[in-house]
């Protein structure tokens, strides 16, 4: 069993505090993605788990064993770095077998493990090459192979795909997921890309400014963001947010003569006069006739389209509600010219209400 537990983990650089008392329990075999904007402390956290950064306070344990002061080599982990960190003076085969050689394993075993890893990642043809002779994607694979060979308790990935171009990134994303299904080890993966987080994770840990903002499955974060930060960080396009005020127990005024009923989910958590942020995704604002047929409470809005982004199966429509630009979606699209006006329906059940001052979601 190799669960990883962080309890109240703190990292300080002099006076600057990078990580503020993080608590996190990762189950055996789980794929956890740490995501957040740059400088949120996600890489620092990963490096503390790896043993590459000293832990200022709190406790990190791997497989039930506190590892705070153990050097990386005694933690039985492996790590894939953003710039791959392949040893430039060794061939691919030597790179793969390096950790076993250091551990003084018998020659035959090294060869077998290296061959296995090479087979999994399709590296057989490249074994005698040096890293400088490989393409970006190949280097990425070697880096992953090196991690596999070691048969670690935990895999750590530090933004492994950010140096690849968009197409390769999608491809490698799938390979990483397949790899996880095949080997089943615990994986902790750091990225700043929410799409990577959504597609890969069993559970996402969203961080900001050294704090964990929300932990949950991708769908949890998508459907029940705890605050406006999560709401705008997860999902593409980001959630639309409109400033509003609770004008009656069951009404929110969004601007001049525009009011919507309070969604059932938030009723009871609001008081009259409260300033709020009214949030909804583009998927929940669609023109009548181009929307998902779905039961539920709806609000009708007549809006003028200012800009369109056709994506094929759907078209993103840019429009304005009460002076704020919002994005809507059109299914089964037809050509739309800017300036055209549509009747939109807003799925009120899928809307979110956040407190304007704190940004926290309001749910009853």
């Amino acid at each position, binding site marked *: 069993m190799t669960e990883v537990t962080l309890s109240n983990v703190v990292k300080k650089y002099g006076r600057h505090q990078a990580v503020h008392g993080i608590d996190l329990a990762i189950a055996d075999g789980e794929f956890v993605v740490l995501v957040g904007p740059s400088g949120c402390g996600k890489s620092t956290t990963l490096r503390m788990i790896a043993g590459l950064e000293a832990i200022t306070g709190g406790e990190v344990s791997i497989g039930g064993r506190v590892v705070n002061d153990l050097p990386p*080599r005694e933690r039985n982990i492996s*790590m894939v*770095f953003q710039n791959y*960190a392949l040893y430039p*003076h060794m061939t691919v085969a030597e790179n793969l077998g390096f950790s076993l050689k250091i551990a003084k394993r018998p020659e035959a075993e090294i060869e077998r493990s290296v061959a296995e890893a090479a087979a999994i990642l399709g590296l057989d043809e490249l074994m005698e090459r040096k890293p400088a002779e490989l393409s970006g994607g190949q280097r990425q694979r070697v880096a992953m192979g090196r991690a596999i060979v*070691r048969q670690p308790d935990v895999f750590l990935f530090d933004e492994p795909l950010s140096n690849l171009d968009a197409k390769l990134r999608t491809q490698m994303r799938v390979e990483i997921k397949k790899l996880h299904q095949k080997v089943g080890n615990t994986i902790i993966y750091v990225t700043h890309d929410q799409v990577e987080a959504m597609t890969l994770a069993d559970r996402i840990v969203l961080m900001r400014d050294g704090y964990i903002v929300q932990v949950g499955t991708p769908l949890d974060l998508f459907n029940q963001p705890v605050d406006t930060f999560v709401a705008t960080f997860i999902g593409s396009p980001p959630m639309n947010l409109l400033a509003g005020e609770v004008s009656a127990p069951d009404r929110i005024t969004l601007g001049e003569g525009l009011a919507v009923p309070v969604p059932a989910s938030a009723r009871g958590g609001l008081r009259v006069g409260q300033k709020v942020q009214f949030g909804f995704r583009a998927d929940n604002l669609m023109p009548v006739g181009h929307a998902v047929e779905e039961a539920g409470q709806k609000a009708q809005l007549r809006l003028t389209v200012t800009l369109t982004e056709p994506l094929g199966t759907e078209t993103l429509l840019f429009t304005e509600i009460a002076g704020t630009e919002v994005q809507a979606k059109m299914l089964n699209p037809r050509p739309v010219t800017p300036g055209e006006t549509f009747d939109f329906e807003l799925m009120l059940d899928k809307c979110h209400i956040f407190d304007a001052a704190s940004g926290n979601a309001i749910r009853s």
Partner: protein
Amino acid sequence: MDRNLAHRNRRRALKVAHFLTLFVVMSIICIPGLWIVLNSFRPTVEIMAKPPVWTPSFTLEHYRAMFGGAGEGGVPVFSYFRNSLIVSVVSTAIAILIGMSGGYAFARYRFRGKAGWFVGLMLFRAVPGVALSLPLFIVFARLGIIDTHFGLILAYVAMNVPFTIWLTDGFFRQIPKELHEAAEIDGCTRWQAFWKVEFPVARSGIASAAIFAFLTSWNEFALASQLTRSVGSKTMPVGLLDFTAEFTINWGGMCALAVLMIVPALILTFIVQKHLIAGLTFGGVKG
């Protein structure tokens, strides 16, 4: 069309001027050295001839005399060569170990006053050899290590360490620190990570730093001329003066010894040139 033609002619003229200037510059750089080599093969009579003889004849007399032991007024070239070699090799080996350790500290650790430490070390390199030779002469004389290989080696180690630090710092900084981290995760201790990963990767750079240090020792005169006295410890630069008597100079013999000094230097330069430039500029530019 006329303007095109004018530009074309101008470009052609510039090309010729460029070539000629380059030729003159390269001649100035090459001729003095070649002249020495040429004269080492000319008989003394011809070197001294007035009016000058322009069609050179060929002789090995100076080399024969030089290697023939105590020829040419008894200049023991063999001993000088051996002394130079011992002193340069040993001092280089020690300086590179010490310098590597220091360079690694500058490249991989953050600490207070780093820039100050660096400049401070460099300043010791700036102390003129002559100025240092005065007190070193007195101190070494007291310690009884004057006129020994050991004394000179010690002095050269100290002289070479600052610059070796400058160079190795540059080379280590070119290696991403993730390599070291990856090695540690792969099960290495810090010590193993250094010797199995960082050192082999920086190997060519370190080799060129070593050769640079070697040449500094090989060529040094100001300290050696005071700290060595006898055949047992004098190095070649000091030995060169043996050919100078009060009023006469054995030009041919000097030229032959000079060639013996230059050849290893040139070969080594040729080997390291690429890495040396990289090391000097990287460390300096990237701060």
